[in-house]
């Protein structure tokens, strides 16, 4: 069977111009990426902002040429067969403002179907059907400029699905949406793939829950490199021998000086400050290590407000792989 998406040692380097020509720098956005996505899969790319997710999508959608390596979509080479790929794909990005505000929702969607050669009658029929599915049928004749962010994103989602692409690329599709709208969009995306085993979606996200809930397999990506690829369950299972604790404590002033990292059996610790308390997320070798943690806290006069043992999440997998939470990684990259 031909892979829906395949990359072989794919790399992309951006040249960043400084004020002077001699100041040109290079930014490695993708480095030696190898992926195989089967038809029928909902495949997630999970990583912080700046990890290289959008660059990968741009290459796969023929918007950007790779610097090294190869990439294939529906069996076609992105560098040589761009037009054949374009007949089979579509893309939706989170927070996009595509289309024209003066046109109605129906008119905007119709316009985009014309660029794919869908006959008008069929296009109008599909617009109606899809808008009903996403609960936007009553706004069909509203100007798109009058839609809220959530409704506009639903319109964008419909635009992507309108053309019945063989491979659909969704770049942070729920970015900026409220919880309810995100849930509806996720439900729709999952249903679309499940409905036909030949459909494939590559979805990028930096929301762990989204990747966990939606994706058949996930690639964790950071600084242009793929660190792990597996099902969300298998990725989390890799941490199940360890014990994961979330401990809320009295505010830690100068937490860096408290040597939690040096404790035997402490694999990873992430410290965040909340309003009036501190949170320590810990991956311990086993439950036995917890006693050493509590002893140290007692010695340092740190009061435990809440202690919770929890199941591993994809965030923990990321922390285990990178050594920092996704949020910390974004801050470091900036």
């Amino acid at each position, binding site marked *: 069977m031909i892979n829906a998406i395949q990359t072989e040692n794919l790399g992309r380097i951006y040249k960043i111009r400084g004020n002077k020509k001699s100041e040109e720098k290079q930014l490695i956005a993708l480095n030696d990426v190898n992926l195989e996505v089967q038809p029928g899969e909902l495949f997630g790319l999970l990583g912080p902002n700046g990890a290289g997710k959008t660059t990968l999508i741009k290459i796969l959608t023929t918007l950007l040429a790779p610097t090294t390596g190869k990439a294939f979509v529906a069996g076609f080479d992105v560098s040589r067969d761009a037009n054949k790929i374009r007949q089979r794909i579509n893309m939706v990005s989170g927070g996009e403002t595509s289309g024209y505000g003066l046109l109605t929702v129906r008119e905007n969607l119709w316009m985009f179907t*014309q660029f794919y050669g869908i006959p008008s009658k069929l296009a109008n029929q599909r617009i109606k059907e899809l808008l009903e599915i996403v609960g936007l049928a009553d706004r069909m004749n509203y100007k798109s400029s009058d839609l809220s962010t959530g409704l506009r994103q639903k319109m964008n989602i419909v635009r992507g699905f309108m053309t019945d692409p063989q491979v659909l690329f969704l770049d942070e599709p729920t970015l900026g949406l409220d919880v309810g709208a995100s849930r509806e969009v996720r439900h729709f995306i999952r249903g679309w793939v499940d409905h036909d085993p030949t459909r494939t979606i590559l979805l990028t996200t930096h929301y762990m829950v989204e990747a966990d809930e939606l994706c058949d397999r996930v690639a964790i990506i950071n600084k242009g490199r793929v660190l792990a690829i597996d099902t969300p369950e298998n990725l989390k299972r890799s941490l199940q021998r360890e014990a994961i604790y979330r401990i809320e404590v009295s505010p830690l002033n100068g937490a860096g000086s408290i040597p939690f990292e040096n404790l035997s059996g402490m694999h990873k610790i992430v410290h965040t400050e909340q309003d009036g308390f501190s949170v320590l997320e810990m991956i311990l070798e086993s439950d036995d290590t917890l006693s050493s943690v509590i002893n140290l806290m007692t010695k340092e006069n740190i009061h435990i407000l809440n202690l919770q043992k929890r199941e591993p999440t994809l965030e923990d997998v990321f922390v285990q792989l990178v050594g920092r939470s996704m949020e910390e990684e974004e801050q470091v990259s900036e």
Partner: protein
Amino acid sequence: MNAVIQTKIKKNTGWKLYLQTVIGRAYPRVIGQQREKSWIFFELFMPMLAICAYVFVYRAIGAPEEYIGFVVVGGAMTAFWLNVLWSMSSQLYWEKEQGNLSLYIIAPNSMMAILLGMALGGLFASLLRAIVIILLGSLLFNVTFTVSNFLQLFIVFTLTMIALYGMGMMTSSMFLLLSREAWHLASLAQEPVYLISGFYFPIKYLGFWLAIGASIIPLTLGLDAMRQLVFPSGATLGFLTVPVEIAILLMLSVLFLIGAYLLLRYMEKLAIQEGRLTENRR
């Protein structure tokens, strides 16, 4: 590697796809632009003010009455110039900013069809504005048109529009490549062209070489030829003969359309190589 999975809904390809793309992209211009009623002020009232000013000046100095007609025709043609400048040349930049450009590129259509759709939609919308200006100007200032050759007039108008919108298609890629501040370039080009293209006076008074230089803007010769064909004394105030102007307009049409095609290909290539041109504000 060959694809084995076919998409399941019927999609047109080839010339049908090209035509659908042209119509699809023209639609926002033809329908959408009419919904923003501010055009009545900016595209009818403002040119009418300029026309009035020139008419009163010409009447005050006792200029021949044909000059009033010249001004009305010139004023009507500003609709096309403003449209080409603000809705063609700057358009790919706006499309990029809005996030449409990348969607246009990844669709299986021709980008030339997108540009052609923009041009035809803009041409249609501007034609409505130009007709209203001609009618209003004629009624207000009692202008009489006497067409000496309808066929030539049709050819001149058609070629002027092809060359003008071809230039707009070409400059849209150029503006996108040159600068993020496309509207500054558009502002810079707006007023000088009113002068050098003779929107409100016969171009022959600019002097031969300056008028020849200004002829690179298709409206210069187009306006001159149209005035020669619709006013009895137009020929005496014309710059070159109508057949010569038609020949030059034909050359400009071909030149600008080929230029548009080549620049668009270059822009697409650059976009894919560098990835900068498909970034939007998000």
